[in-house]
């Protein structure tokens, strides 16, 4: 019933690699703590809050000030630890702060609903005093959680799925229901926890929430053994997956990350609100090129995502469209258990009804996805290869007889993505990683040839195995030319195959190009730097699409 208990929970979850074990630990936690603290625990564990009350830098400065510690020393420690909240926690240990005063056992609710939010209303001086006081009165084992919540960096290896499972076990109710209850906003309160563990399933209560999204798996060879007629084919758009919900006349637009984004796309909400029926649609939001009837690049969509109440001119400059691919609920009736092919018929039927209303032209902002009809699997492959031409990422393949269940259940939806583009590039800079990669050089920059010069074209940090990371880290330390803070420039010697999804002109980069999702796919130890690709090769790739 306290920060102390939650700190223990964190240690238990953090030091277990077994899913069953974690579920058991969570279940026991929920059983032995009161509803309000449980709701806060869920709030933290599901990552629904990552509000930063103060920055890591501020925390470090404050520590330096109070305990007369040189800042450079804290920075050196940071390089080893990779997390400001943890550095300060470890340094506090050295100060024996908590042994001086009577220890407090604050409840999670009080800490999160009162103490910490109150900080933002204080002057720096009062704030510092308050934090210092917390450091000195909280037990040592609670410092990490406290500092992490302050800096908005609380994270632990627990997925929403795991929370869902443990609550489902706790009250013996189907995971799908719990998962649905956990969708959308979660405001920590006794009520929100009681609702979560209510044994009576009342579907009305779920009205304000989107359904758990059905996710696609990467395609497997075995599917090609099936008849092509068993599947429905769609383009895989590169936008934001969303559920467009209209219930009791109210429209809500939910992202897969469970954010309500009505304010960012008011023109869509407005148009939809005039439709007479109630419904839940699964689909994709895109910035749309109406002239050519294809999607604009994702980068244009980014201009809309984080902008609330966009002006009229922004709405015109970046015109959006919602492309529906599934109908999940119609006029209050949940139809997720109906076969996909029949849901599609319903979707088409209702869409044509809505479209034919002359007083509300929806076609400039809303459509249903076109289907593709490959005649056999080789034909499907041809479609996939063509997907770059219409700015899609490949195909989505859905089993016609499937129902709409939540999560990444296998064998229902498949994604068949177009192969990534690849270039061989030379490693020229490395930077220390943070978090789990602290103390290792794990952020890399790569260059391509331009005449006799190597020009940086992309940065990547994923794709190497842990063993390769360690090996490369050793090499980096031995082959550094110069250090600039955390960055090292390196002897050009190592060649890597870099894969990426998209390539486009960029004025901001010296290379003149920008790539999307760059990642390392191979350490080309067989190649010398003269074998690496040139910028010209990159331009060639751009012409092809």
């Amino acid at each position, binding site marked *: 019933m306290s920060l102390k208990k939650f700190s223990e929970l964190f240690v238990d979850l953090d030091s277990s690699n077994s899913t069953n074990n974690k579920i058991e630990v969570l279940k026991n936690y929920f059983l032995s703590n009161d509803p309000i603290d449980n709701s806060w625990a869920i709030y933290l564990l599901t990552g629904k809050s990552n509000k930063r009350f103060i920055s890591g830098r501020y925390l470090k400065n404050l520590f330096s000030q109070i305990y007369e510690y040189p800042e450079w020393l804290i920075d050196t420690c940071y390089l080893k630890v990779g997390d400001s909240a943890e550095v300060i926690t*470890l340094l506090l240990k050295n100060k024996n702060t908590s042994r001086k005063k009577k220890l407090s056992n604050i409840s999670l609710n009080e800490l999160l609903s009162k103490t910490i939010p109150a900080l933002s209303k204080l002057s720096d001086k009062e704030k510092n005093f308050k934090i210092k006081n917390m450091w000195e009165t909280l037990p040592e084992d609670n410092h990490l959680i406290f500092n992490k919540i302050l800096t908005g960096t609380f994270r632990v290896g627990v997925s929403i799925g795991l929370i869902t499972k443990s609550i489902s076990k706790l009250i013996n109710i189907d995971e799908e229901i719990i998962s649905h209850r956990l969708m959308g906003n979660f405001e920590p309160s006794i009520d929100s926890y009681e609702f979560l563990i209510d044994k009576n399933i009342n579907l009305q209560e779920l009205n304000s929430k989107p359904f758990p999204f059905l996710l696609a798996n990467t395609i497997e060879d075995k599917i090609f053994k099936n008849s092509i007629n068993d599947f429905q084919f769609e383009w895989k758009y590169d936008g934001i997956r969303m559920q467009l919900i209209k219930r009791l006349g109210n429209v809500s637009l939910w992202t897969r990350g469970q954010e309500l984004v009505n304010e960012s796309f008011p023109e869509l909400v407005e148009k939809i609100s005039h439709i007479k029926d109630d419904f839940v649609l699964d689909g994709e939001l895109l910035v749309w090129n109406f002239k050519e009837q294809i999607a604009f690049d994702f980068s244009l969509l980014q201009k809309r995502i984080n902008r609330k109440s966009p002006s009229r001119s922004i709405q015109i400059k970046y015109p959006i469209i919602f492309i529906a691919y599934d109908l999940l609920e119609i006029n209050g009736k949940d139809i997720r258990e109906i076969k996909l092919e029949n849901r599609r018929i319903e979707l088409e039927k209702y869409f044509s009804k809505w479209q034919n209303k002359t007083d509300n032209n929806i076609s400039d902002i809303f459509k249903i996805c076109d289907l593709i009809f490959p005649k056999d699997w080789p034909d499907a492959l041809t479609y996939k290869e063509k997907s770059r031409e219409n700015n899609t990422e490949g195909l989505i393949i859905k089993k016609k007889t499937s129902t709409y269940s939540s999560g990444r259940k296998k064998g229902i939806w498949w994604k068949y993505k177009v192969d990534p583009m690849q270039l061989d590039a030379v490693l020229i800079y490395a930077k220390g990683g943070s978090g789990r990669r602290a103390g290792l050089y794990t952020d890399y920059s790569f260059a391509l040839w331009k005449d006799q010069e190597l020009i940086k074209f992309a940065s990547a940090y994923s794709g190497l195995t842990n063993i390769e990371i360690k090996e490369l880290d050793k090499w980096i330390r031995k082959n550094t030319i110069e250090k600039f803070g955390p960055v090292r420039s390196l002897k050009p010697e190592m060649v890597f195959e870099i894969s990426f999804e998209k390539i486009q002109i960029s004025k901001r980069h010296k290379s003149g190009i920008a790539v999307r999702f760059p990642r390392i796919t191979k350490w080309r130890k067989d190649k010398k730097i003269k074998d690496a690709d040139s910028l010209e090769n990159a331009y060639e790739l751009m012409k092809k699409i």
Partner: protein
Amino acid sequence: MRTKEEDLIRYKDGSLYCEPADVWIDPNRPVKTALITHAHFDHFAFGCNEYFSTKETAILLRERVRDNINIKTFDYGEEFKINGIRISFHPSGHILGSSQIRFIFAEEKWLITGDFKLQKDETCKEYEVVKTDYLISECTFGLPIFKWDETNKIAVNIAKWITNSPDKTSLLFCYSLGKAQRLLNEISKTNFKGNIYSHSSIEKINNCYKKLGISIINTTKIENKNKIDELKGSLILLPPSLSKGSYLKNFKNIQTAFASGWMSIRALRKRSGYDKGFPISDHADWDGILEVVKKSEAKNVFFHHGDSEALSQFLVEKESINVLR
């Protein structure tokens, strides 16, 4: 660490060397005369003509090396002379037999700490404060983020870790020499009363410690024929080299942990691949190093083995000690 040609002790080819006496300290390759601070292999090179060490270190080395090596042994504090240089071994608290080495020549005192710790450890002699003019100290954990908990607190946590999972076999990885014996000693004082097994490499050292008069609780040598059911709820000590690879397939339903000072950092703990980490070290933490520097009254300090930059700068700025870098 940078030393000068005329220094009594200096760095040469990656090892510490005392030229006037022509002796090397923990050399990394065969030399004529090697002074050995303790019996860990990273401080020992095969093929030297003669070795000097404490009695305990000699016995541990002979047990581990199984070679007929020529070791001259000395008691702690017993002084001997080579080319007029007075040399003596002093307890360093790292493991059984571990020592600091002091050199005195023409009124000038030099002290090499070897690996050391200040924390209480019943399996070896406590660190002895030795006054010196020049100090050469290790600094494996030379950052203020390292602050060791009381050993008994860690032992209680280990006991809890085992008893909280009665259906599992708990594998605790630790260095065979020193750490394992210290852990056994501490765990025997907790309320964990289950079975304890050791890997043969650890069992061997346990017996050696016992012969040298250190009381270590009896453990059973783990063998492949141990039944899985019998291992439920028990503790098994293993060397870290066995943590990767097929050895673990001998067991079912296990949880693993590593006992090492590095485990105090979450990123390292996560990367290590063990389920759990217990931060316990046979090296000094930041405060320990500062304390030794202070109590030695050294006017000149050198650091090696670790992150010396931050520690050096700190001492120069805060304590006005001459750190030679």
